[in-house]
């Protein structure tokens, strides 16, 4: 498969689409980033819709967890470490109260951004007398290293506030709904690198939806696009692997073993969406001494206003589920920008809103009064 992106585009343009609309969902912020920044949408025939789906773990991280992390930083004598794109995600707190980890830091909380679980361990070792809480959101690719760190041995003073999620159950939820909203799936390359491409077999086998694993280059993404289009048109569906140089059968056995050893899979809440069965990671009992959920009191008061919800007016949840495009949210680009984000999809590097904004789309197509011409 030595075709260039141009070659794949040429092949796609020769397909007999003839006015047949085909909606292809991706479930990876990295994919959406490449698609948007490389301008792939505008290069494709008009019949093809590329829909960003659930590809941003920070965007679906429970509001309660972020609130809890903020309260730990403010009320407990801890160092709170987390990936940088979590710092500015707002929670639903009244005006004047601390609404993000960034604000918690400004208010005196010891909040430090990190880029790797290794840094969390190092900060814990450098501060042996201080409890360090690693607030870890992420999909399989990001949670596997956290599991590896746990398996290797966590410093005594390091605990985990884990908000890890599995990608495929969100896609399964969409496919089990009456109107999934897409006709084909481009499956995430790095998740498949870790977990194995086979995880996505159910899309084809149980739902007869074409699927192809893609990498992050325009060439790989267009190869996957071509594959699913051809499958769709010919009615011959299979799980294709358009990232074979990195994605191998069975995935990464060490990563999977670490996940299996340190974590169990549990029903989990996705912000603005609700509980998705078997979609979350939780620490196993053997690691209870490092589970921040049991080590610290839950600071979420049961009657906290708008607890767990997306911010008022924010369409992030529908954007995450591929039911609306980012610019169909009425806040997009006016009240909600990367500088003053309202919803998490405008904060995270993997959020579709932020990616579209970075790609030059800056204006909402929704009317302030009537809302968006929704995809759904």
């Amino acid at each position: 498969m030595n075709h260039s992106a141009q070659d794949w585009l040429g092949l796609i343009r020769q397909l007999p689409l003839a006015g047949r609309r085909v909606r292809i969902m991706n479930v990876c912020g990295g994919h959406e980033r490449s698609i948007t920044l490389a301008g792939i949408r505008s290069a494709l025939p008009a019949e093809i819709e590329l829909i960003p789906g659930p590809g941003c773990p920070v965007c679906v991280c429970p509001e309660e967890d972020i609130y809890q992390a903020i309260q730990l930083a403010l009320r407990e004598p801890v160092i709170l470490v987390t990936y940088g794109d979590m710092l500015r995600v707002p929670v639903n707190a009244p005006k004047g109260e601390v609404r993000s980890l960034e604000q918690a830091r400004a208010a005196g909380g010891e909040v430090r951004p990190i880029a790797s679980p290794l840094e969390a361990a190092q900060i814990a070792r450098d501060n042996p007398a201080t409890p360090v809480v690693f607030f870890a959101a992420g999909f399989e690719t990001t949670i596997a290293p956290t599991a590896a760190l746990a398996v290797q041995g966590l410093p005594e003073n390091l605990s985990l506030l884990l908000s890890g999620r599995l990608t495929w159950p969100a896609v399964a939820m969409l496919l089990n709904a009456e109107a999934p909203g897409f006709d084909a799936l481009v499956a995430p390359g790095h998740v498949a690198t870790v977990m194995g491409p086979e995880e996505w077999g159910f899309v084809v086998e149980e739902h007869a939806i074409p699927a192809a694993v893609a990498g992050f280059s325009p060439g790989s993404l267009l190869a996957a696009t071509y594959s699913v289009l051809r499958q769709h048109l010919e009615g011959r569906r299979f799980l294709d692997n358009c990232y074979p140089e990195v994605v191998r059968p069975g995935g990464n056995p060490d990563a999977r073993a670490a996940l299996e050893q340190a974590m169990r899979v549990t029903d989990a809440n996705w912000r603005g969406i609700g509980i998705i069965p078997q979609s979350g990671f939780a620490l196993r009992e053997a690691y209870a001494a490092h589970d921040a959920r049991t080590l610290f009191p839950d600071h979420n008061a049961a009657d906290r206003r708008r607890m767990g919800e997306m911010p008022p007016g924010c369409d992030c949840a529908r954007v995450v589920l591929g039911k609306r495009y980012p610019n169909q949210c009425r806040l997009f680009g006016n009240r909600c920008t990367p500088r003053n984000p309202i919803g998490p999809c405008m904060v995270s590097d993997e959020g579709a809103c932020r990616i579209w904004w970075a790609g030059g789309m800056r204006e909402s197509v929704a009317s302030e009064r009537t809302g968006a011409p929704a995809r759904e």
Partner: protein
Amino acid sequence: MQIQEIDGFMAKCEAKGVERDVSLFMLQHEPVDLGDFVVVHVGYAIQKITQAEAQSAWEIYDEMLAAEAEMEMELAPPDHA
């Protein structure tokens, strides 16, 4: 990234002049050597790849960084702008 030094499960890796400490803990199933190329995610190598594949990945990241730098400029315009 390319592996420069290995000490147990830890390696020093380099890509385009940037050096990082990288854990090889999740590559125990594969032999890794100095000079090998790996895909790194949050400080952990998750897969070994060929030099050509690493090269192609760098080109993408360069494009992304350029696009992002442009966005950051707009986010925080210089004082004289």
